């Protein structure tokens, strides 16, 4: 299984903590909302991803696991 981080754009109000905690996959747009790199998250970055999800005050982020297809 591989992990991907996804945002609920309705819930997100642009606090921006996620980009601080997980810059490897998340940057902010000019208004402060996260732009997520959809690339799968390698195991060594998993802890960072989970920290970003846990820190979101809007509970707008989640981690989605999906079967490996890219190999």
């Amino acid at each position, binding site marked *: 299984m591989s992990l991907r981080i996804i945002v609920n754009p*309705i819930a*997100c109000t*642009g606090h921006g903590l996620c980009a601080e905690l997980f810059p490897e996959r998340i940057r902010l*747009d*000019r*208004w*402060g909302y996260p*732009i997520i790199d959809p690339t799968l998250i390698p195991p060594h970055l998993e802890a960072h991803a989970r920290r970003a999800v846990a820190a979101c005050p809007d509970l707008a982020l989640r981690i989605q696991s999906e079967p490996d297809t890219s190999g």
Partner: protein
Amino acid sequence: MTAPLEQPLTTRIGPRLLDLPAAVGLDTHLARFGPPPTDLGQLIAWVDSAGLRGRGGARFPTAIKLAAVARRRRAIVVVNATEGEPASIKDKALLHQAPHLVLDGAAAAGAAVGAREIIVAVERSAVATMEAAVAAADERRMAGLERLAVRVVGTPSRYVAGEETALVHWLNGGEAKPTLVPPRPFERGVSGRPTLVDNVETLAHLALIARFGPQWYRRAGTAEDPGTTLVTVTGAVTHPGVYEVEGGSSLAAAIEGAGSAMDDLDAVLVGGHFGSWISATEARQLTLGAGSLGSAGAALGCGALVALPRGACGVAETARITRWMADQNAGQCGPCVHGLPAMAEQLTVMAHGGRAVDHARNELLGLLPEIEGRGACRHPDGVVRLVRSALRVFATEIAEHHHRGPCAPSGPWLPTPSIGGWR
């Protein structure tokens, strides 16, 4: 099901949906089309081989939607007559003119998916259409024709209120704003039930497929774009209105049929405010087929065609409708809330002309990728596509604005109706 009509509905394939005069009663309807079919066991397969696609704008294969709902229990059918596209009136016109055909389609779809209830959702300012739907539903109940409960409701006059998750959310007592998917309505919709949300025109075609079968349906149109399709033609035409044309027929013919010469036009907006601009030169070469329009980066969408005359300013028109689309956002997703007004602002600068034009154009180009694909629904994506098409089709005009300022006032050619509330 009934055998294919001995006699086609019209000689040369002409109107199928708009075959009868306005607001027909049940007797006239039954005399024309015969009794509604009762054996619907093959309906989904028929709809599949007919190649019917949703006519609300997304053109999603109707059979796939039907099958997804049919796999689940105790479904609800929603007839989507919200038609928030300001340049489209075909759904309201069709439901007004042929309410029984639409309700036949809803009943057939309802039977195929095992539904318990039909809800007809009409944008609430369309009073005559709502009345026609209510009268038709009453007539059918009295005649003992309607197996399912039919309820007609008036929906908020907002652009995104007809997006299917927004419509379901409103029907469940919330604001008419899109919700996050999944779950999609077919999984969990009205009252938590699996819900089939289908456009008015889609269901009317389905009613005819249920009666006459897929081979009959495919007698009109092309292999890729079978059947007929409704278009609303407005703008610089002498006879604006709703026309029924064959799938894959000529775009220019549709415009000229409404009383306009392509030579007098600068561009055509295909698909309404959620659509794309096509230059008049390009438009001459295209059909209304998905492949042909797709080659020009466009799609028929809801079927709205707006003719922009020579001398009108496509940039000013685009700025105006982008502003309107910005005002229509649901206030939910940051990139849409902030991005759409920002786009409108840069377009307004470009429409005014002068030395700020180049800078505004570059700003706009930077905004587009930052907005696209970042909403819960496709509203921002539609505006981005519209603006991209404007930058391409009106590139010369934009360059001229830089040197000589704004175009002479013309229009407005595209409607921007007043906005209602969310409930």
